[in-house]
């Protein structure tokens, strides 16, 4: 009996020692220490704690790289050239990188971990992107599933935006979400107002960030955001324009129309807004105000399934069909779209089918 107990005891002791060794080894082998990020041939160097993703390491060093998905590897926006210190291309990067990009050392920095010194190339304009800790000033219902979030920047801070750009906001850890997550939203702010950021947010069923905004966010709360990002913007031409968006896709157009009003831009523009029923429409008063301020602007809401008590006498049907009825010849016009890639693809077919050159069609790539 004693022999058996000694054997069991010895086995337990050996297992315990091995487990301890594993813990110690893990602690030291996975401790990458301080790593150096050598940016643009040494014009800037940052010391960062090894072990985190390159995206987060750069964020902690105050360098914000565009990322619309919060580092999930789904948007493919956080591309940088990494000349040394990176492993071979990872499976999660492959769908986003062309063979040319791979040969030029382009990488997805949300997927790379910093384990040693790295040499990087970062476009200079990205150094202008900043992070703010603002305050939720108001949260307004625009309809049953869309809210306008208004954030006041810290006292004394200002942000210059180009209408069409977007910011990322941080959702803190809450409920079952163990760590902060970032999501991108188009800026809806009048660009003259440099001390606020307005966002139009639609509730995503099961969405981590939007559930937080709808169920847990309150005026007065602090909120972190960084930006501005993106190259979706109005061209400098005088061409007549079409805007197409539904739901929260209205955000960039609110900012663009405010810019046109501020700068007295008189380009002709028709905005086709697709919705199911009257309850899904948003910002009707603002659109009316824009129509009064901009004589060449027309807002065309179109409902696909108006309810009987909507008493709707406006356009009905699909946005693209309504657009064709209003604008039979698109050959000398431009189109701006804010929707999913599938919606944009369908619109490109409809627009080019009515004579619009493909190079005159612009859409928000982050969506």
């Amino acid at each position: 009996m004693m022999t058996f107990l000694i054997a069991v005891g010895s086995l337990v002791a050996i297992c315990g020692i091995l487990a301890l060794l594993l813990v110690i080894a893990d602690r030291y082998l996975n401790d990458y220490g301080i790593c150096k990020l050598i940016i643009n041939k040494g014009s800037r160097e940052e010391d960062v704690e090894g072990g985190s993703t390159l995206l987060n390491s750069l964020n902690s060093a105050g360098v914000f790289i565009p990322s619309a998905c919060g580092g999930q590897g789904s948007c493919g926006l956080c591309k940088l050239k990494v000349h040394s210190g990176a492993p071979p291309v990872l499976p999660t990067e492959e769908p986003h990188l062309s063979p040319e990009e791979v040969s030029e050392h382009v990488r997805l920095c949300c997927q790379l971990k910093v384990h040693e010194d790295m040499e990087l190339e970062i476009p200079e304009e990205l150094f202008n992107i900043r992070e703010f800790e603002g305050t939720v000033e108001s949260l307004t219902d625009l309809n049953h599933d869309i809210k306008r979030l208004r954030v006041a920047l810290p006292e004394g801070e200002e942000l210059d935006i180009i209408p069409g750009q977007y910011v990322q906001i941080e959702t803190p850890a809450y409920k079952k979400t163990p760590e902060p997550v970032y999501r991108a939203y188009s800026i809806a702010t009048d660009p003259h107002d440099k001390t606020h950021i307005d966002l139009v947010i639609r509730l995503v069923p099961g969405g981590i960030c939007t559930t937080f905004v709808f169920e847990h966010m309150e005026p007065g709360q602090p909120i972190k955001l960084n930006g501005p990002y993106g190259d979706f913007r109005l061209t400098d031409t005088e061409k007549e324009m079409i805007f197409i968006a539904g739901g929260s896709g209205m955000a960039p157009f609110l900012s663009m129309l405010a810019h046109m009003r501020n700068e007295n831009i008189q380009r002709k523009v028709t905005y086709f807004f697709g919705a199911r029923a009257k309850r899904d429409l948003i910002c009707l008063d603002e659109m009316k105000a824009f129509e009064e301020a901009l004589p060449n602007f027309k807002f065309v809401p179109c409902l696909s399934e108006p309810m009987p008590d909507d008493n709707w006498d406006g356009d009905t049907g699909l946005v693209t069909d309504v657009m064709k009825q209003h604008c039979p010849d698109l050959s000398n016009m431009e189109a701006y779209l804010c929707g999913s890639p599938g919606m944009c693809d369908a619109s490109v077919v409809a627009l080019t089918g009515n004579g619009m050159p493909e190079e005159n069609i612009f859409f928000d790539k982050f969506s």
Partner: protein
Amino acid sequence: MKKNPAEQQSRDRMEPGALTIEGFLGTDDRPLADIIAADTAEVEAAGLTIEELGAFLEGLHKTADAGWEGRVPACNGKITVRSDETLGQISCPFTSCGDHCHKAVIGVKDAAGNDLLEFTPLDAHLIRKHGFFQGKGSPYRIGPKKLIAFYRFCKG
């Protein structure tokens, strides 16, 4: 059953709070391979494949996208489809995949206007590419039986 590291990583991404609030597993504690095998067997017993079913849903999403929130007829008018879109994308929870899908809910009605099915683009992808209908109790699980009946209604 022992889980391999890749399965464990995928499973971690399916937990509540990782990619979505509710996650993809519901109350199902079976290994992923067992969940997939059981559902795939049910599909094959019906003489169909997971690729057929998933691709069918992906096609309906593509049709719905053309409507920009409007309802679009599909399958020779037997059904109509509409996509409620929100901006942004979501990654596939399978770590070896690297694909991502747009965030949307596709609603399907029959010709009389009765609700038949709701699914997301990620549901369609998970079924077609991974044979994963999600765990039992997951809010977005569409069981094989329901999907097969829907498919036959549309195709029949």
